[in-house]
C-alpha cells in the first residue's frame, strides 16, 4: 500500500494544533515563544480580510501571504494537508452515515458568502473570523471544550479528596503531570460557550449530507483558496471521471459532483491517485492553459457581494452608546474602530489571559463585536506584569507591547462609588483596593479623616481616591472589592465625547 502522505501531514498538523492550543498559556516565562496564533497567521482568509479592512499590511501575517502565494501554485493543499477542522471531519468521515447532498448549498452560495464577507471587510466590517474554520475550532476548544474538560478533571480530583482525604497525595504525581501538560490552570467558564459548541456541531452535522460538506460548499477560507487554486499549473489527468470506472466519485472527498473535475474544489489530498486501481490518475505540471477557463465567480456574485457587504457593514455598524464605557478592551488597544477591523475573534487572548479577565462579548459590543474580547473586572483583572494577550494576537489587534509600555497602557479608569465604598458609605475601614493596586506609586491613595461612626464612636477612616494620571484601569481594585453587591470602585473606559 502506498503511504498516505496527506493523512500523515493532516495528523501532524492536528497534533500541532492541539499542542499549540495547550501551550498557549503562561508557562513560567514572560514571553510565549510559540502559540496557536501560528495557525491564524498562516490563514489566507485572515490575511485578505485584514488587508481589506485595516488597509495596511503587518509582518505578523507573512505566513498567510506564503500560503496565499503557494496556493496559486499548489491549489487548495491547505484544506487537504493542514486544516485541523478538515482533518477532524475526515477522521469522523467513516462514522457518519450520509443521506443526500443538500441542494440549496450547491451552486454559488459559497461565493456569495465569501464576497459578502470580503466586501464587508472593505467597508470596515471584518466579520470573516466568525466563519473562519480555525476560528470555529479554536473558539469551540477555548470556550466550550476546554473549560468543561478542566472542570471534569478538577472535580474528579476534588472528588478523590473527599473520598480518600490526604492519602490522595500518593496519586499526586500523576495528577501533577496532567495539570502541567493537559488540564487548564484556571477554572473559568465563558459566555457564548453554547454558541461556540453549536457552530462546531453545525459543521460536523453538515457531514450527514455529504463528505466535507462545510469545506466544499461553505467554508470562506476554502472558497478563497479554491479561487487561488485555479491558477495552479498542476493539472489532474484525466480531467473527468473515467467512463469505465468512476470510483473517483466516491473516493474524492470534495470534487466530483459532476463528471468533470472541479479544480477549485480539489483539496489535493491525492486519494484518487493513491487508490486508482489502474494507476491512471496523475497530477502533472503544465503551464499550458487547458480548456478550463480562468474562472471568475461572475459579475452577479461580485455585485451581490458588494451590495450585501455594504448592507452587512451598516446593519452591524457599531453604535457609540453610553454602555460602551463599560466595554473595556485588552491593554494597548486604542481606537475601538481600528481594533474591530483587525480582531479575528479567534479567542486566543481569552485563552491565555492569566486571571480570567477577558471574555467574549456577546451583544454588548453590538452584533459586530460578537466574540471580541472584553475585560470584565468583577470576574478577573489584568495582571500588571503580564503581556501575553498582545503576544498571542495573530494580527496585532492587541498590540505586542514591551512590558514597561504595557504597564502604562490605559484600559480604563477606576472610579470610587461613594455610595457603596465602605469608608464613605458605612464609615468602616477597608482599603483592599489600595492594598492591591499594583502601580508602584499607587494609583489609589487615601486620606485619613477622623469622624464619628454611626454608633457615635470616633474612628479614623481611610478613604480611597484615585490618581487619574497613574491609573491604568487594570481592574484589580474592582475585582477584589469585598462588597457582596455592586463594587465600591469600578473601571470605566475613557471615551472621547462629541457634544
Amino acid at each position, binding site marked *: 500500500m502506498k503511504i498516505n502522505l496527506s493523512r500523515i501531514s493532516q495528523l501532524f498538523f492536528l497534533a500541532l494544533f492541539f499542542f499549540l492550543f495547550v501551550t498557549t498559556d503562561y508557562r513560567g516565562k514572560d514571553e510565549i515563544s510559540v502559540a496557536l496564533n501560528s495557525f491564524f497567521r498562516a490563514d489566507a482568509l485572515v490575511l485578505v480580510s485584514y488587508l481589506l479592512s485595516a488597509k495596511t499590511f503587518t509582518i505578523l501575517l507573512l505566513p498567510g501571504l506564503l500560503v496565499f502565494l503557494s496556493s496559486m501554485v499548489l491549489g487548495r493543499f491547505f484544506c487537504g494537508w493542514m486544516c485541523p477542522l478538515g482533518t477532524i471531519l475526515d477522521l469522523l468521515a467513516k462514522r457518519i452515515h450520509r443521506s443526500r447532498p443538500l441542494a440549496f448549498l450547491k451552486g454559488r452560495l459559497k461565493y456569495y458568502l465569501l464576497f459578502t464577507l470580503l466586501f464587508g471587510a472593505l467597508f470596515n466590517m471584518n466579520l470573516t473570523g466568525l466563519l473562519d474554520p480555525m476560528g470555529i475550532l479554536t473558539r469551540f476548544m477555548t470556550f466550550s471544550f476546554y473549560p468543561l474538560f478542566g472542570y471534569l478533571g478538577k472535580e474528579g480530583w476534588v472528588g478523590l479528596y473527599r473520598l480518600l482525604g490526604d492519602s490522595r497525595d500518593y496519586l499526586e504525581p500523576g495528577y501533577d503531570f496532567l495539570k502541567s501538560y493537559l488540564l487548564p490552570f484556571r477554572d473559568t467558564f465563558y459566555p457564548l460557550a453554547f454558541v461556540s459548541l453549536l457552530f462546531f456541531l453545525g459543521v460536523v452535522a453538515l457531514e450527514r449530507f455529504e463528505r466535507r460538506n462545510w469545506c466544499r460548499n461553505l467554508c470562506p477560507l476554502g472558497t478563497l483558496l479554491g479561487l487561488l487554486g485555479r491558477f495552479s499549473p498542476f493539472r489532474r489527468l484525466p480531467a473527468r471521471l473515467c467512463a469505465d470506472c468512476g470510483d473517483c466519485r466516491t473516493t474524492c472527498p470534495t470534487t466530483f459532483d459532476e463528471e468533470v473535475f472541479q479544480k477549485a474544489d480539489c483539496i489535493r489530498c491525492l486519494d484518487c491517485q493513491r487508490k486508482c486501481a489502474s494507476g491512471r490518475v496523475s497530477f502533472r505540471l503544465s503551464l499550458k492553459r487547458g480548456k478550463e477557463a480562468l474562472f471568475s465567480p461572475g459579475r452577479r456574485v461580485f455585485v451581490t457581494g458588494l451590495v450585501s457587504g455594504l448592507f452587512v457593514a451598516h446593519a452591524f455598524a457599531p453604535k457609540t452608546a453610553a454602555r460602551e464605557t463599560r466595554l473595556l478592551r485588552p491593554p494597548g488597544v486604542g481606537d475601538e474602530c481600528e481594533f474591530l477591523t483587525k480582531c479575528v475573534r479567534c479567542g486566543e487572548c481569552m485563552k491565555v489571559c492569566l486571571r480570567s479577565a477577558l471574555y467574549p462579548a456577546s451583544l454588548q459590543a453590538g452584533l459586530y463585536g460578537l466574540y471580541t474580547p472584553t475585560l470584565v473586572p468583577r470576574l478577573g483583572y489584568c495582571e500588571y506584569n503580564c503581556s501575553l494577550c498582545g503576544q498571542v494576537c495573530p494580527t496585532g489587534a492587541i498590540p505586542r507591547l514591551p512590558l514597561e509600555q504595557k504597564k502604562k497602557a490605559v484600559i480604563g479608569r477606576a472610579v470610587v462609588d461613594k455610595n457603596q465604598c465602605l469608608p464613605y458609605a458605612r464609615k468602616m475601614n477597608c482599603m483592599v483596593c489600595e492594598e492591591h493596586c499594583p502601580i508602584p506609586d499607587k494609583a489609589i491613595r*487615601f486620606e485619613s479623616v477622623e469622624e464619628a461612626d454611626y454608633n457615635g464612636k470616633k474612628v479614623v477612616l481611610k478613604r480611597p481616591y484615585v490618581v487619574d494620571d497613574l491609573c491604568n484601569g487594570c481592574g484589580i481594585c474592582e475585582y477584589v472589592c469585598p462588597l457582596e453587591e455592586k463594587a465600591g470602585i469600578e473601571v470605566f473606559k475613557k471615551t472621547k465625547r462629541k457634544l
Partner: protein
Amino acid sequence: MNRRDFIKVSVLLVLMNRLLTRDLWAKETPVVAVAEGPDYGAVARSAVNALGGIGRFVKAGNTVVVKPNMGWDRRPEQAATTHPLVVKAIVEECLKAGAKRVKVFDNPCNDARRSYENSGIPAALKGLRNVEVKFMDEERYKKVNLKGTFLKEWDLYSEALSADVFINAPIAKHHSLTGLTLGLKNVMGIMGGDRGFIHRQIEDALSDVNSVVKSHLVVIDATRILTAHGPTGGSLRDVKVLNKVIASADIVAADAYATGLFGLKPQDIPITVTAHKRGLGEMNLDKVKVVKA
C-alpha cells in the same frame, strides 16, 4: 480569728497565690534573636541557632510547614516577598533536624503561577528532597471554629493545621491599612474565603486566627524591607537593605522588634497591640531578651 488560724489562712493564701500564678512565674523571658550579614542564608541560620537551633522546634519525623510571603507577583529585590535564600536556609535546617516533609505554600493575591515563579522560592528549593512547593488547593480548606471576637469561624488550610511544626517566615514591609505587615499578618496566607472581608476589623481577625494557628517559630526576613507603598511595592526607591533576619518563638515579640526597623514603636501597630492584649505574646521590648547573633 486566733493567731493559729491566722497563720493557717495566710499560708493557704500564699500557697494558692503561688499555684494560681505559677504559669507566670515559670514563663521564660521571650527571646528575640537578630542576625546581620550579607549572606542571607547564613544570617537566617545564625538567627535560628541563636534561639537554640531548629532542633528546639523540629523533631525527627515531623511534618513542617514553612509559610513565606509569596503573595505578590514581584521579584525578590522589590521586597514584597520573602527572600528565597532565607526560605531555603530554614527549609534546609528543618531537613537537617530530620523533618519527614517540609511544605512551602502561600495563597497569593496575584496570579499564583506568576507569584510563585517570580518570588524565586520554587527555584531555590528545587532539587531538595522531601520538600514540596505546591499551589494551595481549594478543597483542602477546612471550616474552623475560631470562637474569636470578630471571626466566629473561617476556612483555614488543613495542611497548616495538621503540620507538627508551623514556621512563619514573613518579610518585613509597609502596609497601608495596618502600618506594617509582619508575622501576625503573614498568617493570613493560610486563610481562604473572602479575605477582603477581614479588613473591616483586621486586628481582631488576625488575633482570632493566630490564637488557633500558633507559629512555633517566626523568622522575619528583614534582609531588605519595603518602607512605603506596601504591601505591593514595586519601586526600588522604597526598598531599604538591612541585611537582617529576626527569629523568635514569640510572634508578638518578633513583630514588636521588627517594628523598630521602620523607626516605629510596637504600640503604633494595632495588630501587635491587640495580639499582645489577647495574650499571644510580649510586645514590651523591655521584657524581651534580644540576642544579637
